[in-house]
């Protein structure tokens, strides 16, 4: 079947460990940021978002950190599970308009 992200950076973690996926965004005017998870053969799935007036937001097992000074975004996944294995993309939005996606990261979780 289709393989998303053949040549993407890869993060390998052991089940139960925490994962940190990083992303650099391009436009200092972007005011809304989103993390998506994409499994092979599927469309991107929304995980968590954050607005530019925040620097941290927490969800279930996930935390997004935003550093506007260096235009950096990170996704932290606590107690990583095999089902977390996928390609993760950050995306930036400058309004109710197009998303600009970053380079994805493949997360591989080993038992």
């Amino acid at each position, binding site marked *: 079947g289709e393989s*998303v992200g053949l040549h993407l950076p890869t993060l390998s973690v052991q089940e139960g460990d925490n994962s940190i996926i990083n992303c650099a965004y391009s436009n200092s005017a972007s005011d809304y940021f989103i993390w998506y998870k994409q499994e092979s053969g599927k*469309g991107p799935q929304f995980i968590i978002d954050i607005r530019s007036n925040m620097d941290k937001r927490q969800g279930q097992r996930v935390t997004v950190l935003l550093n506007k000074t260096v235009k950096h975004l990170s996704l932290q996944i606590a107690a990583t599970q095999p089902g977390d294995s996928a390609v993760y*993309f950050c995306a930036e939005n400058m309004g109710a308009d197009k998303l*600009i996606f970053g380079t*994805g990261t493949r997360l591989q979780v080993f038992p």
Partner: protein
Amino acid sequence: GAGVSQTPSNKVTEKGKYVELRCDPISGHTALYWYRQSLGQGPEFLIYFQGTGAADDSGLPNDRFFAVRPEGSVSTLKIQRTERGDSAVYLCASSQGLAGEETQYFGPGTRLLVL
């Protein structure tokens, strides 16, 4: 259905042929987006509809690509005279289209292969 749906899931065509790809957004979502994803890359924006009108079509690569959304719900992406380089996954997303409600939810995509 609860999510964005796209048909067909797979499409194989020959170079030079015409194809149509369909997207059914989440009910009530006024904003609809088309993206294209090549192997190993993130999705790239093609076109955005707010209601029936194309609010931003700056991502369409050339005039062989066209999209419509005549009743503000279902959208069709049309590709004329397909080329091998058009082979990709075509993704559709929808959102409520309101400030503060910009989250885009994606469909499963249509995998287009041009031989």
